[in-house]
């Protein structure tokens, strides 16, 4: 005996199913990068603000001194990339929640993608092409090792 099917509304967009497990990996990614960011950011703040002369030590020379070491170059690059991928993916989730028109979603997702990639590229450029001893700068503002370079 066949009974009539209950009429179900058009099913919700099964967009996750076209790329299987995409949302699962997004979720796992947030759980992994969250704690890693926590360690990176807390250490970053501690070194910059609590050690040495604390907040008053931060100037051009301090930043230049840090970026002279490959450790802090990699550290800051990691912070930059993870914060943007984590924050960017988080914003993607929020766009999915709040932007209901497909075209609005597309526009916002594109803008977000461009911003994330743009900021990562610019930030990485600054970290790795940074010149700690610009030629015509006031020597009193430069890190101490610049005297040897000159």
């Amino acid at each position, binding site marked *: 005996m066949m009974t009539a099917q*209950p009429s*179900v*509304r058009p*099913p*919700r*967009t*099964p*967009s*996750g*199913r076209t790329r*299987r*497990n*995409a*949302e*699962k990996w*997004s*979720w*796992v990614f947030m759980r992994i990068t969250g704690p890693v960011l926590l360690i990176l950011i807390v250490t970053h703040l501690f070194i910059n603000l609590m050690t040495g002369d604390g907040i008053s030590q931060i100037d051009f020379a301090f930043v230049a001194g840090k970026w002279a070491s490959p450790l802090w170059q990699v550290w800051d690059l990691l912070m930059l990339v993870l914060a943007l991928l984590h924050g960017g993916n988080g914003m993607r989730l929020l766009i*999915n*929640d*709040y932007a*209901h028109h497909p075209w609005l979603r597309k526009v916002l997702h594109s803008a977000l993608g461009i911003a994330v990639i743009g900021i990562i590229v610019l930030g990485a450029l600054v970290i790795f092409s940074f010149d700690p001893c610009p030629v015509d700068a006031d020597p009193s503002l430069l890190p101490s090792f610049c005297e040897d370079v000159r």
Partner: protein
Amino acid sequence: MTATAESPAVGEVKAMQVTLRILRTNPEGTDDHAPGESYWQEFQVEAHATDRVLDALHKIKWEQDGSLAFRRSCAHGVCGSDAMRINARNRLACKTLLKDLNPAKPIIVEPIKGLPVEKDLIVDMEPFFASYREIMPFLVTTGNAPTRERLQSPEDRQRFDDTTKCILCAACTTSCPVFWTDGQYFGPQAIVGAHRFIFDSRDEGQWDRLEILNDKAGVWKCRTAFNCTEACPRGIEVTKAISEVKKVLTTGEI
């Protein structure tokens, strides 16, 4: 000598005046309000501290304004018909005592959020039930049916005991901020309904259900806000059930 029916009652509960502020909507409109417009209306009723919000709503409907619309059936927390937003929290009107709400202030009663309002406190539950149907809330097995019950050890039963208590009241789903903003999310209740079968040792449809919940609109929409756990009138640990489903999906083990 017969009973003491006329003697002063021992520990009599005093009657008091309570005010209910109800968010009303009439699809046909009233003299003062356009069709579909939502507006607040206050009612004063005499009630006892031990009365429930449902009793106060009944008094309004039966004695003051018969047009007030709300759902209820069992009046004892079993059927799940009368979930509503009372003082900004989702609860069953039939399980909420006035004395637990500070009756000195107006008690604010709204329809549950996130589902289309049909009239006053009645919402269209169809999108909610559609999500429930999608996770296949029935036993799925293969092979011949046994000639007797499908037995199960108490330990196996314990794994999904909590989620069998669901009465489909929608208090959890309509307390979820993700459900409010995004009409697509299955919502906590559908995951509770799936949990009840996924962790049932007799069921063989687990991976079909898990596949459905692995969707973009499935468990990964959950941000662990815990609103659902706080709202559930059956005391189901909804967020925990959702986490258990996520864990199965990430580890691949039930």
